[in-house]
């Protein structure tokens, strides 16, 4: 096992990989600091640019982005009360009050060191868990892989917080989109409308660029103004005290990191739950819970440690089962597919060096990103003050060019625009995009394994009940599908809750 860790580390220590890791880190800081963009948009934009790169170099670049995004998000959260990424919203609660009190440097320093330590703890946890995960996935055959795809969709739908039905709807739409193109099992061209471009299906990366980068730009263009609404808190001092504050509050860091690691390993739950759970448990455990929300440094440390620890453990369900932990991981899945690395059980066996290299890249980017983030805090924060009408055309043009560059096909640009408008409508009418992406990624796998299972059982379905792992998965799916009923029953028992109105 140790030789694989070292091989992964050694692969990362090549000049080109280090250069791309550093580049990814800078891109991650930049995108993390701009609210509305975040890691998903950053990965979607860089994916086409990695087309000509070796898979490992592309992973180093992606690892650099993912490791550095949380630090970028913290910068705008603390300085401008505008979280660059959704999980960083928890950092705003105490980070921004600290900045208003002239202690922005203290908060940034604490965020940077908590980020780095959280990342290291997350990495150690993943390194410990991966060998066990590898043994587990060997139990999986076509029936289990089909059910796993269904389970992934249901998990992601249930984690869409109060939008279960809509999560399932967008999941079904994603499945239908994934059926477009040539079907390798039946040899039939489906839903192409005679368009030759669609023979290979809807290209994933252009669609992702549209759903995330372009959709956010349409939204920003309509909202107008600037991303951040004020520039009063750009003063930065006493960072060293902030760096040390994390060590003074080590139980908070440890608690946050463990919460992040556990939450990250649950598919579809994501970093926002991890950061807010860590924040609220820290406040509950504190001797001065009333000081939280007014500028308590532990209120910065707790979510930051959780956010970066989550990044490492998120890789487990993403790589082992192809079930992403969040939007960023969903886009990362697309990047893996682009480079011929099919996420799933076999990936843990066939690409171990790449996986360990990616984990090291994440950790390196997280530590370096925290240091560089401190140096770049002020100029990055100023990006959020750029007029949306200037930022939008530049990012949109880069997004469409990136889409074209995937395979130098101009049809990609049309796909990106169509998915951009679809993504915008989904934001506007409150339909989750994550399930759409997960279904687009899992659709082909699900259908292939379903048909292979049917062949194994001569067209029957009883095989699902005769194999223990698939029976366990079936029960899991059933329980999750029933979860809204169960939750409703218990919440009525407790509170007699009434039916909510649609919020306007």
């Amino acid at each position, binding site marked *: 096992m140790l030789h694989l860790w070292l091989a992964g580390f050694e692969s990362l220590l090549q000049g080109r990989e280090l250069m791309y890791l550093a580049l990814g880190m800078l891109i991650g800081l930049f995108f993390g600091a701009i609210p509305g963009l975040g890691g998903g948009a950053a990965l979607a934009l860089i994916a086409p640019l990695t087309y000509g790169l070796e898979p490992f170099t592309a992973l180093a670049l992606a690892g650099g982005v993912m490791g550095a995004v949380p630090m970028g998000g913290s910068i705008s959260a603390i300085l401008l009360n505008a979280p660059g990424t959704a999980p960083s919203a928890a950092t705003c609660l105490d980070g921004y009050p600290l900045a208003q009190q002239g202690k922005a440097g203290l908060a940034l320093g604490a965020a940077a060191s908590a980020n780095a330590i959280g990342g290291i703890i997350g990495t150690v946890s993943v390194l410990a868990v991966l060998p066990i995960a590898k043994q587990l996935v060997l139990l999986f055959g076509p029936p289990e892989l089909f059910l796993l795809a269904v389970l992934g969709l249901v998990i992601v739908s249930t984690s869409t917080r109060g939008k279960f039905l809509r999560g399932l709807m967008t999941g079904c739409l994603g499945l239908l989109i994934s059926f477009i193109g040539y079907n390798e099992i039946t040899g039939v061209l489906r*839903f192409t409308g005679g368009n030759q471009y669609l023979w290979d299906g809807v290209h994933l990366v252009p669609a992702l660029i549209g759903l995330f980068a372009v959709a956010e730009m349409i939204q920003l263009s309509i909202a107008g103004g600037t991303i951040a609404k004020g520039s009063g808190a750009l003063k930065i001092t006493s960072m060293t005290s902030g760096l040390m504050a994390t060590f003074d509050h080590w139980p908070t860091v440890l608690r946050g990191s463990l919460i992040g690691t556990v939450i990250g390993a649950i598919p579809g739950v994501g970093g926002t739950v991890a950061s807010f759970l860590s924040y609220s448990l820290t406040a509950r455990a504190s001797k001065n819970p009333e000081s939280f929300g007014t500028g308590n440094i532990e209120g910065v440390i707790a979510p930051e440690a959780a956010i970066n620890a989550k990044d490492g453990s998120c890789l487990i369900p993403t790589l082992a089962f192809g079930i992403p932990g969040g939007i960023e991981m969903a886009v990362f899945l697309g990047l893996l597919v682009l480079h011929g690395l099919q996420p799933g059980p076999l990936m843990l066996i066939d690409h171990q060096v790449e996986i360990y290299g990616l984990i090291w890249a994440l950790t390196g980017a997280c530590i370096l990103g925290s240091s560089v983030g401190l140096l770049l805090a002020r100029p990055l924060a100023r990006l959020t003050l750029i007029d949306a009408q200037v930022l939008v055309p530049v990012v949109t043009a880069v997004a469409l060019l990136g889409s074209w560059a995937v395979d130098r096909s101009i049809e990609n640009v049309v796909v990106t625009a169509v998915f951009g408008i679809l993504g915008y409508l989904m934001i506007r009418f409150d*339909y989750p995009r994550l399930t759409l992406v997960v279904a687009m990624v899992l659709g082909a796998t699900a259908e292939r394994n379903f048909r292979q299972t049917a062949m194994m059982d001569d067209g029957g379905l009883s095989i699902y009940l005769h194999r223990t792992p698939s029976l366990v998965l079936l029960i899991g799916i059933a329980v999750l599908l029933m979860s809204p009923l169960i939750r409703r029953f218990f919440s009525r028992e407790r509170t007699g809750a009434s039916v909510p109105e649609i919020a306007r």
Partner: protein
Amino acid sequence: MKSLFGRPVSDYLMSAGFAAAAVAFIATASSYSPDARAFPMASAFVLLALSGLDLAGLTNTAAGRAIRGLLNPAIKADSNPGPVSRQAAAVLSLAGLVAGLVLLGIEIGVPLYLLTSLRFRARRSWISSIAVTAGVSALMWLLFVSALRLDLYRGVLFAR
């Protein structure tokens, strides 16, 4: 704004769009062989049923409230879409960029889009619009042509 079952018609549009997409997939799949259509048909019928539930859940009726409370308790209506002119401008400018790229190619389409967006939508001065356009175009050229060695798409009108 016209309303239906106590809710503006616009609230139903997206869900109706999902249902329409499901119907289109079912209609198309019905001409395929049983093997090729089984999985897509099943998915499309599920989407149709779910869209029906979502549409019903949007109504301001007892059944609608029950469905919403059970399956979609946290949804938000289209609360602040912004002025129609801005929405149209955002979508049209994206369509304009796509049309420019397809017809004129990247070397002309991108700078033209940037310049017109900055000058006429962002209302920047000619000098700053030209400066930003030149800077961004140069960076893109360096990245795609110089570093990645790609032949930029020339557009339908200028294709050789």
